[in-house]
């Protein structure tokens, strides 16, 4: 690593960015470029692996190693890389279709294994690249090219799904909120193992305004329930309280501050984070943002490499001659 600290520009590749004007991907990219220098990791030791989709163009624009792979399979490639090269920092860039439709299985398996991947899920609730079909996060009843009479599927809640899949780090943030996104990225980078970050991302072409309520100045204050570890969970107008065994959003004016749920991102029991994830589904009136869950469990690559190291330290490194000559052998003269 060079002595001179790197800057945002150092992480900007020479490739022309090719998203539609106004696409939410721009601000995510710019935030990432600005964030990377802070990691203090040399550019050559950072790898971005993406699938296919508008969002999956992301790696081209970063002056790091990068692979724009195939639809839904980025976590598999990234897993092989991260496990075999624990010295690298590996990001996965994916969309709601890429991660949750065709790639759903790889996502949940990477999460349960806790492979050292930082997974950014750009959720625009639509298939952008293929020009506007509904996705597994599209709200039921959505009218799209493939559902002219309205979609019928109950959408996934990516956070619930991830928690159900034993994820150790799950967060949610919004494309345009650079500060919040940066904070979440910082925490994800510090986390051992898999980190899944759902990013609400506006697609002005095929699903414009899907997240207006959490982005517009006059609504977002009420809509965004801020989760900060050790602090009360609340928006500008509402707060979270216990309601028997479950959680409830109430107007701040109706409760005292001390009744509010104090956020514990490190709660080992995922039931807590799961309950938080249920506060909002398709509708976005009260959307928890921040880190739902951040618990400590060894990373998969670490376990794999430790297992190898341990057997070597116990038995010594393999000797090919001994291997080939082992077992039942006989001599022919």
């Amino acid at each position, binding site marked *: 690593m060079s002595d001179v600290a790197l800057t945002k520009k150092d992480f900007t*590749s020479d*490739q022309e960015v090719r998203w539609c004007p106004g696409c939410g991907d721009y601000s995510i990219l710019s935030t990432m470029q600005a964030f990377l220098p802070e990691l203090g990791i*040399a*550019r*050559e*030791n*950072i*790898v971005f*692996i993406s699938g*296919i989709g508008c969002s999956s163009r992301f*790696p*081209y624009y*970063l*002056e*790091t*190693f*990068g*692979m*724009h*792979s*195939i639809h839904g*399979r980025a*976590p*598999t*490639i*990234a*897993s*092989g*890389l*991260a*496990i*075999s*090269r624990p*010295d*690298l920092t590996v990001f996965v860039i994916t969309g709601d279709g890429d991660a949750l439709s065709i790639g759903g*299985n*790889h996502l949940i*398996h990477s999460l349960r294994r806790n492979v050292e991947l930082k997974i950014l899920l750009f959720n625009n609730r639509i298939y952008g690249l293929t020009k506007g079909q509904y996705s597994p996060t599209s709200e039921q009843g959505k009218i799209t090219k493939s559902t002219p009479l309205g979609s019928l599927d109950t959408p996934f809640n990516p956070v619930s799904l991830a928690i159900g899949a034993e994820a150790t780090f799950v967060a949610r943030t919004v494309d345009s909120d650079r500060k919040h996104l940066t904070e979440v990225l910082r925490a994800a980078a510090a986390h051992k193992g898999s980190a899944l970050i759902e990013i609400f991302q506006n697609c002005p072409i095929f699903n414009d305004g899907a997240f207006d309520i959490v982005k517009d100045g006059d609504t977002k204050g009420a809509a965004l329930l801020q989760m900060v570890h050790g602090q009360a969970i609340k928006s500008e107008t509402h707060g979270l309280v216990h309601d028997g065994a479950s959680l409830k959003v109430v107007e701040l004016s109706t409760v005292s501050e001390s009744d509010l749920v104090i956020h514990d991102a490190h709660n080992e029991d995922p039931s807590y984070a799961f309950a938080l994830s249920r506060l909002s589904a398709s509708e976005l009136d009260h959307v928890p943002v921040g880190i739902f869950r951040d618990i400590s469990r060894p990373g998969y690559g670490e376990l*794999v490499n430790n*297992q*190898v190291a341990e*057997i*070597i330290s116990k*038995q*010594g*490194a*393999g000797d*090919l*001659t001994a*291997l*080939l*000559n082992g*077992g*039942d*052998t*006989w*001599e*022919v*003269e």
Partner: protein
Amino acid sequence: MPLPLVKGGQSEQDKGVTKPVLSLDQVTIRFAGDSGDGMQLTGDRFTMDTASLGNDLSTLPNYPAEIRAPQGTILGVSSFQLHFADHHVQTPGDAPDVLVAMNPAALKANIKDLARGATIIVDKDEFTTRNLSKVGYETNPLEDGSLESYKVHGVALTSLTVAALASLALSRKDAERSKNMFALGLLTWMYHRPTESTENFLKTKFAKKPEILEANLLAYRTGWNYGETTEDFSVSYEIAKAKMPAGKYKNISGNSAMAYGLIAAAERSGLKLFLGSYPITPASDILHELSKHKKFGVITFQAEDEIAAIGSALGASYGGALGITTTSGPGVALKSEMIGLAVMLELPLIIIDVQRGGPSTGLPTKTEQADLLQAMFGRNGESPVAVIAPSHASDCFAIALEAARIATTYRVPVFILSDGYIANGSEPWKIPSVDSLPDLHVDFAQSQEDFLPYLRDPKTLARPWAIPGTKGIEHRIGGLEKADKTGEISYEPANHDFMVRTRAAKVAGIDVPDLEVEDPSGEATVLVLGWGSTYGPISAAMESLRANGENVAQAHLRYLNPFPKNLGEVLKKYPKVIVPEMNLGQLALLLRAQFLKDVISFNQVRGLPFTTAELMEATMKVIHV
């Protein structure tokens, strides 16, 4: 009263074989019984004892797709065939000279493979009315004269075993479990195999279960003594050592040889071996074997499916490891899209397909060669890969090294087409010295300015292997068409055409050795051209034909894509070319298309290797039209 446990080694001579001894030049024995009867173990032990005696040999295990099919049924029959000789052995043998049948089902399932005059040893205790009717015998074949043309030995295997073990504190059921050892002991006596190694094997295996150990040893020795003592067996047989090149040998199966070859390739290249795999019969044993050798730095990753398996291997390759994935046909189908990406990325990748009967789930435990065209063409677009195939079990070692050479030199996916027959079959293997193995040293791209990820080596047309962690060569690659040299996305028509042709030229230009033709008389007009696991049966058939005075040439393709450069010439030289395949003519299709030669296909798709006889007959028909 139990025999005293033997101390140290004791050869059959020490034990004093007293009956007349006949010399044979070769024997084929098939052990057959219920899945639970331990036939694979019995066969394995007999094989080891035979190998250590210096015979050449070849084995063929055959077991049902079910883990434990219902006892006593035809479907539950598991068998193990072994062919050993005082000369070079090419196949596990067409028709067994000896069938050991542990029950009526085993007899019924195997009798049709025996030639008249063959020896049959059965456990007559098992020929109860109930067991007979289970498999549709209306009368007892041991009594109804239907086995007249065979030499039948009805041995009360079960009751003799149980009686011998009477003194041990074992349930009858547990005692019966040792009857395979009785059978093994008997056969060991019959063929003068040494007993030491099996006794040692049992001692290690049951070190912690002294009762079971004693039971097994007792049964084993009782079986041996039974041969020596009873009237029923009047002669025993000797098969002299085979003349084999000097050296140290071990018996090895195709799957084990493959695993060793991959480890050797990693060692010789200095690369980390990364296996991404999803279990599937008959490929799983490569995963199992490799996962035992983590101290070589080997990483085995059992993925959630075949796509993730190959994806992880490709990711590891991208990071500079020797990325490998192992599977069988249905798994290859799932890997297709990722192989296409590997073609585009031009990264080394080894895909091992241990072929089995298809299509679809097909015949999971049976062999076939019907994935050749899938390997060649099973992807969208023009998507060339290298394809090679081992010819016999131990050849899997060399083919693994060769796959690594091609993959790393040309940065290209390489298919290895093994199959169920050589994967599970075994043969003696002369252990090579590590120094004699090829040097597979690899150069990664170095730090540099203005790095061009798709600038090619003019000789190999390979692009640089440019791995993360190398300062200054940060770059982005992907599955979209890429511009020549820079590797940037390009939709330029002329560039696409160029890149498509360049990828094709790279694979076509892979350096492979010329095809060698064996044509001892130099006067053959018929060439038999095979590939993959048909090598043994074809060679055996050719030897026999030549022994019968026929002139016939033989050649065997280890390289399916690209073909050896002299293949066209070879095909031209022989007016008639027979291509035997365990499919409907897949290599034939490629040969016909490329060389416009009217090759003669000989096809069988029976889930079984060819027999020597079938191949001799097919060849004779062509020679004497």
